[in-house]
């Protein structure tokens, strides 16, 4: 059973606010990922990390930023939220071996008013 946790589960907030979505895993995985998922659409990778102090942008352009200071923690930050940022954000992690499956948290549903 995967142990990856995201907080908050739901967030409704006004435009212009700074937001940090938290993601933590207890499996000791080196790789971590952030995805966006909108209804009827496939998962889009927005950020990934292969270890501490390693972060890369994914396939989908995003105004968010990430950091990886500790192996178990991979927070995502929006400096100034806009309605276009409304989406479901999913965090995942996987073992270092390149073809291991990703394990997901339950996501944060973000609504920007």
């Amino acid at each position: 059973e995967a142990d990856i946790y995201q907080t908050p589960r739901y967030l409704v907030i006004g435009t212009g606010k700074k937001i940090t979505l938290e993601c933590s895993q207890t499996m000791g995985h080196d790789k971590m990922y952030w995805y966006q998922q909108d209804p009827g659409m496939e998962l889009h990778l927005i950020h990934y990390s292969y270890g501490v102090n390693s972060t890369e942008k994914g396939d989908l352009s995003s105004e968010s930023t990430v950091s990886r200071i500790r192996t178990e923690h991979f927070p995502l930050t929006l400096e100034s939220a806009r309605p276009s940022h409304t989406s479901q954000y999913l965090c995942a992690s996987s073992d270092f071996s390149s073809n291991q499956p990703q394990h997901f948290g339950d996501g944060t549903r973000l609504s920007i008013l």
Partner: protein
Amino acid sequence: EDQVTQSPEALRLQEGESSSLNCSYTVSGLRGLFWYRQDPGKGPEFLFTLYSAGEEKEKERLKATLTKKESFLHITAPKPEDSATYLCAVQLYNFDNAGNNRKLIWGLGTSLAVNP
């Protein structure tokens, strides 16, 4: 262009009525194929990984198979608790400059509803 297509988009079954979901892919090089289940308001839950044509994996009422062009997720005698969206993702042989492989291509999923 690398692509993953799942069909049907939606499927409604009666309890006990077996069926199959399809994931077809056209990619430059398959490293692995993953099946996930996603319940409403939750993240995807890993089910199976398949690596080579002819491989099969089973878990309870689910059985996944792989050919060179597609994968099937067979559901035998489904129950209402099997209702969910089933996602397929393909990992390519695609390495970045650091030698890391991150490329997953996701399908849109099949929404399965099993009526009691």
